């Protein structure tokens, strides 16, 4: 329907450049690319730009398979693009199981497909460094919630250390090209990418420490909270902190249908990462599954990136996202079919098409309503699940609360879990959105400061204001469900304490 919106530059020469999928012109974004380098995939030379992840560089060169399933050898693309799904594990410079969606390219880097379960590295291949960090507060995950927690606490005099496993800090904000709703206090009418920059600026001004490509992989009991953090697969950071804010976000849900593992079928957030962070066109013709805000927003962003969005299908009888987001797609000629879902994907080695089907009142496919559409990209926008692993490993009590997206660490209104001094904020405490995540972050930052005996009056004021803003943001009917879930979590927390 739409003209190819952004311009794809067709370069010549080395492999990877003549089918270069990098976006050069975009209505909202400008892509700053680093120095041109060469990486090697199983001996084949591929051009890449510094600052790109391995997956981004390979994808730009048209390479969309990164691993194979162990038993049947089925090709695997990337699904999530943010280190949560393990679809892109490859051997990099001798190191097995590297999440190539997180690891940045380096000149001369040797990347290999892994066979079966992969092979252990030879001990001499990898040099491991060690470091110890003592801090008042560690924040795990530098998205809107974590950064808000860190900034708030640091401004109240707390010594803060933020770790994030992505190469860029800012969480999902760095790929949100749309303008945010809300009020002045939560950056209304500012694009997510700009909010990320503002938060990073505030983080620097507040003098908080932070580091990227660093995963908190384990919690250990000691006098203080102790965490093992692994950075760049080669450095072990032992962190001791009085307080912890876990703001690890969420992972995207999968949907069950034949061939759902074909490369070309990705989570909506993964697609955003590829096209909005690294400026790579994810496909030519797209089908979007799910008409919640994520599906609607990604559909619009795909059109901005020059992708033809064929349709959005939604199993529910109504559009779940805001109608203003739906209207943006509709007036671009994109149909939104409610009571419809994907029945199967088709393709050899990569998705080439999909069959959609209408559902009856009981969610059953109506025979004879199948329709085939040619697409090379399927975006799954069917909800998120909190990334709670570290919380459960640490021993926080959990509960299954469907309104919050599944298993969550139960917490009180101040977002403290059943483990003293361990807080949750943002999607990991219940799937919501960035504006509320920022408010939750502020609440935890203020609480941590109070616990540590910092400027109590000021901290209490920040806490109260943030609680009030959060209540305002949740006063819409769209928040009824999540509020119900939150109340359950608070109630279970009270019973447990």
């Amino acid at each position: 329907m739409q003209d190819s919106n952004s311009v794809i530059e067709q370069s010549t020469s080395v492999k990877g450049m003549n089918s270069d999928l990098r976006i050069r012109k975009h209505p909202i974004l400008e892509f700053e690319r680093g120095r041109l380098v060469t990486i090697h995939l199983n001996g084949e030379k591929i051009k890449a730009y510094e600052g790109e992840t391995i997956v981004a560089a390979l994808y730009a060169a048209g390479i969309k398979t990164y691993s194979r399933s162990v038993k049947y050898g089925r090709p695997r693309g990337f699904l999530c693009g943010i280190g949560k799904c393990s679809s892109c594990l490859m051997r990099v410079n001798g190191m097995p199981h590297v999440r190539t969606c997180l690891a940045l390219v380096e000149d001369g880097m040797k990347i290999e497909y892994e066979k079966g379960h992969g092979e252990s590295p030879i001990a001499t291949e990898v040099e491991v460094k060690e470091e110890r960090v003592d801090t008042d507060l560690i924040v795990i995950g530098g998205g809107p919630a974590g950064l808000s927690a860190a900034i708030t606490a640091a401004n109240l005099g707390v010594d803060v250390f933020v770790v994030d496993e992505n190469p860029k800090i800012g969480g999902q904000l760095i790929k949100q090209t749309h303008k945010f709703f809300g009020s002045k206090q939560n950056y209304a009418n500012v694009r997510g990418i700009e909010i990320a920059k503002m938060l990073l600026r505030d983080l620097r001004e507040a003098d908080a420490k932070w580091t990227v490509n660093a995963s908190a992989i384990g919690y250990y009991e000691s006098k203080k909270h102790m965490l093992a953090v692994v950075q760049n697969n080669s450095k072990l950071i032992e962190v001791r902190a009085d307080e912890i804010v876990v703001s690890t976000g969420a992972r995207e849900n999968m949907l069950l249908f034949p061939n759902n593992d074909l490369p070309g079928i990705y989570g909506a957030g993964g697609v955003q990462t590829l096209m909005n962070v690294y400026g790579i066109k994810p496909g030519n013709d797209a089908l979007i599954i799910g008409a919640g805000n994520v599906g609607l927003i990604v559909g619009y962003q795909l059109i901005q990136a020059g992708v033809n969005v064929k349709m959005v299908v939604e199993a529910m009888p109504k559009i779940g996202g805001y109608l203003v987001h739906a209207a943006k797609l509709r007036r671009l000629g994109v149909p939104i079919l409610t009571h419809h879902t994907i029945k199967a994907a088709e393709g050899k080695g990569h998705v080439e098409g999909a069959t959609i089907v209408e559902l009856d009142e009981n969610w059953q496919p109506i025979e004879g309503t199948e329709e085939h559409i040619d697409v090379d990209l399927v975006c799954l926008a069917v909800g998120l699940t909190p990334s709670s692993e570290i919380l459960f490993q640490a021993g926080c009590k959990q509960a299954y609360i469907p309104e919050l997206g599944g298993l969550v660490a139960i917490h009180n209104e101040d977002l403290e879990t059943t483990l003293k001094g361990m807080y949750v904020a943002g999607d990991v405490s219940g799937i919501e959105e960035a504006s509320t995540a920022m408010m939750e972050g502020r609440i935890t930052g203020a609480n941590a400061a109070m616990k540590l005996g910092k400027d109590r009056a000021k901290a209490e004021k920040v806490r109260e204001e943030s609680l009030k803003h959060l209540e305002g943001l949740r006063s819409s009917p769209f928040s009824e469900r999540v509020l119900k879930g939150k109340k359950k979590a608070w109630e279970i927390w009270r019973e447990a304490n």
Partner: protein
Amino acid sequence: MGNLEGGELSSYEATGVPTPEHLERILPPKERLKKGSVVIIECIQKIPCDPCAHICKFEAITKGSLTDPPEVNYEKCTGCGECVAACPGLAIFVVNTKYRNDKALVTIPYELLPTPKRGEIYEALDRDGKKVGEAGIINARKVKNGTAVVTIAVKRHLAMDVRNIGRKLK
């Protein structure tokens, strides 16, 4: 969930295109439309959002609470269009039915490439993305936040239908 009043599921919620009944609730009175430039805010859900109410210098747009849909005082609205790029949902338009005898102006938010230029002709699209006529670009300016505010001239009877532009025709 019931985000729209009235209880029963409306086709607006099933398709994303407002029904005439919904439009009636958000369109200015006919008398006001006849007087020239006026805002049309196509936002009827309870969304926690308020930049439109803050940007209006004439206090023509108000919100009862953060989540109430915006209300427009059409007598105060001058049709200046400052609110068009201020709406995060790209749901605000300005219509001037007094432009020429047979032509009306529609001002739309636009975030695709290429940014239209004065004098060019584009397809005029309705809320369903269907081509319903031609749109002459009268003015296009990109505001600081990246949204372009584009004013197009369309046949007067299309003023309440055209809400987007499609392919460039010339």
